[in-house]
């Protein structure tokens, strides 16, 4: 891995103050990301992926939320930064793509203008230059006849096209880091692949780093260099994509992998599921938060929380008292 770290997250916690007490949505997460790398953050619904992404963005509200630890974004500290300080980073250092392209575009503004605006305000471009650049961006994200689409309203475009527009808007100020929070959840499968491939191509051509937040391991399998597996707000396993898929040690990772449908399994095979539900973050137990749902859980799991420990592979960490044997056959997707 190159020594240049674009994003360094250290001991990051995000705690919401609720009427029932503090809710640790993200608890003590550390990872880093080099330039031109793609990091996948995976986990079930409610595992804290989106909260993590929004905390890295500096988007947590200032009231009722406590963020501790450190997020260094290209040398700038995000934790504790004021909105004015963040505003200087937003767009140029880091940009974000949201889950639902239906709501992430202003319905009463022509899509071209939504890209224009950013260029004119942030880059100080003239109206004409901004328009030319916006059309260029539309072309870059693979929108056919961009001059015509420039004048379209979001409601006139399909979901896939809208997500392309959202990506174009995010790319307007050439950010160094692109955070994609479940960018394909609102789209159907064929469009999903197109959008993910597009992100991949753009990452290469624009030398960006990408953080891809998803619950779908199939999405991250071929497009990320690193994976962080989250459960109940904590990292339970992380490492290079290869290691996580081939040598995963944490039973939760395996359960996640097994609950992805495989094209090689015979038809009418029942899809494996993880029994039970994610834990209530308000009532976390002393032990491993996955223990109640884990087939390998022992008494120790229920009483003592495992910390991340290293494996033979560099950068590959897991948190489990009863890790799976690492010579397991790789799970293929």
């Amino acid at each position, binding site marked *: 891995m190159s020594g240049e770290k674009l994003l360094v997250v250290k001991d990051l916690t995000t705690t919401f103050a609720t009427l029932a007490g503090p809710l640790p949505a993200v608890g003590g997460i550390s990872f880093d990301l080099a330039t031109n790398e793609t990091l996948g953050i995976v986990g079930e619904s409610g595992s804290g992926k989106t909260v993590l992404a929004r905390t890295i963005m500096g988007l947590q509200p200032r*009231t009722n939320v406590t963020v501790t630890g450190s997020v260094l974004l290209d040398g700038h500290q995000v934790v504790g930064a004021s909105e004015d300080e963040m505003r200087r980073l937003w767009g140029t250092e880091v940009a974000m793509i949201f889950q639902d392209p239906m709501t992430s575009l202003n319905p009463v503004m022509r899509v071209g203008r939504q890209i224009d605006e950013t260029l004119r305000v942030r880059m100080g471009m003239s109206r004409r230059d901004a328009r030319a650049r916006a059309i260029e961006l539309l072309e870059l994200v693979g929108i056919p006849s961009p001059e015509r689409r420039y004048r379209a309203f979001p409601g006139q475009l399909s979901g896939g096209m809208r997500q392309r527009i959202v990506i174009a808007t995010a790319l307007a100020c050439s950010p160094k880091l692109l955070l994609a929070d479940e960018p394909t959840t609102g789209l159907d499968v064929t469009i999903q692949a197109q959008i993910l491939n597009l992100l991949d191509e753009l990452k290469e051509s624009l030398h960006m780093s990408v953080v891809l937040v998803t619950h779908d391991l199939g999405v991250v399998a071929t497009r990320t260099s690193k994976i962080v597996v989250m459960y109940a707000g904590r990292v339970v396993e992380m490492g290079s994509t290869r290691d996580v898929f081939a040598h995963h040690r944490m039973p939760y990772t395996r359960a996640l992998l097994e609950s992805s449908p495989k094209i090689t399994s015979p038809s009418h095979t029942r899809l494996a599921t993880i029994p039970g539900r994610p834990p209530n973050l308000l009532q976390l137990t002393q032990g491993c938060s996955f223990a109640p749902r884990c087939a390998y859980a022992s008494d120790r799991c229920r009483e003592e929380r495992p910390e991340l420990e290293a494996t033979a592979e560099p950068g590959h960490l897991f948190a489990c008292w009863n890790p799976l044997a690492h010579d397991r056959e790789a799970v293929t997707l």
Partner: protein
Amino acid sequence: MSEPWGLNPEVLVPHGLVERPEKKRPLGPLFWICVGWIALNLIGAIFANVLPLENPLFQNYNFINAAPSLHHLFGTDDLGRDIFARVVYGSRISITAGVGAMIIGFGIGAPLGMLTAYKRGRFDLIVTSIMYVVLAFPAIVATIAVLSFWTPRNLFKIIVVIGLASVPIIYRVIRAATLSVATKDFVVAAKVQGASDRRIIFKELLPNVAPILISFVLIGIATVITLEGALAFLGLSVNPPTPSWGNMINEARTVLAQNPWLALFPSLAMCLFLLSLNFIGDRLRSHFDVQEVKL
């Protein structure tokens, strides 16, 4: 050159991306009739003293309680004043009260509502709490109480009192409308593109709130005109002999049996004006309604 499959290539949209044509339902003739009627009323109100109308205060004792005729289109009242002239001059007071009160009401309520909905936090909590406390007190009672004691009454005072009384309601509607927009991802998206608060309020929020704002202004004006009528009925509007639609109806009450025209025409003028305003407001709201297309 003929197409191989008899298909127009323009029809085939690449990548399976669907395009929806830009189409809008026309506003319809009734809408334009209503707009015309409002415009006519406004012209009458603005140019009342230029138009060939009789003096609305001139008392012609030869024609008392006269029925409509060519000479007096709407007839005359119990003091021999021309009802048509009084209805036209009366529209001045009524429309001015409606528009004026809404300028005050929206001038305060709308910016405050948008700001608190966008900013949230303590500021929102304090302002909203105050507004709800005020809202809990019946506005009409407060209006009547203030106008009873704040004498001598004139149009300006009526406008100020009604305008201020309408602030909490306007605040609440605009805040709710803004709130539903401000929580959408595109506002966060604009923010993380580095847009300033002012830019987000004017470029992202305002255009989305505008349809509700416009139709609510129109309906608000209509409500204030009715309210002015109600106040006039209680003798709390402008002092006679100045005509307003409300106090004309009030005066007609006493001579309803002898001269029904006197009550009919100002009522009709008010009714049609309000109907037009409400219809325009309603039609505009549905016209601007952005249809969320679900795939």
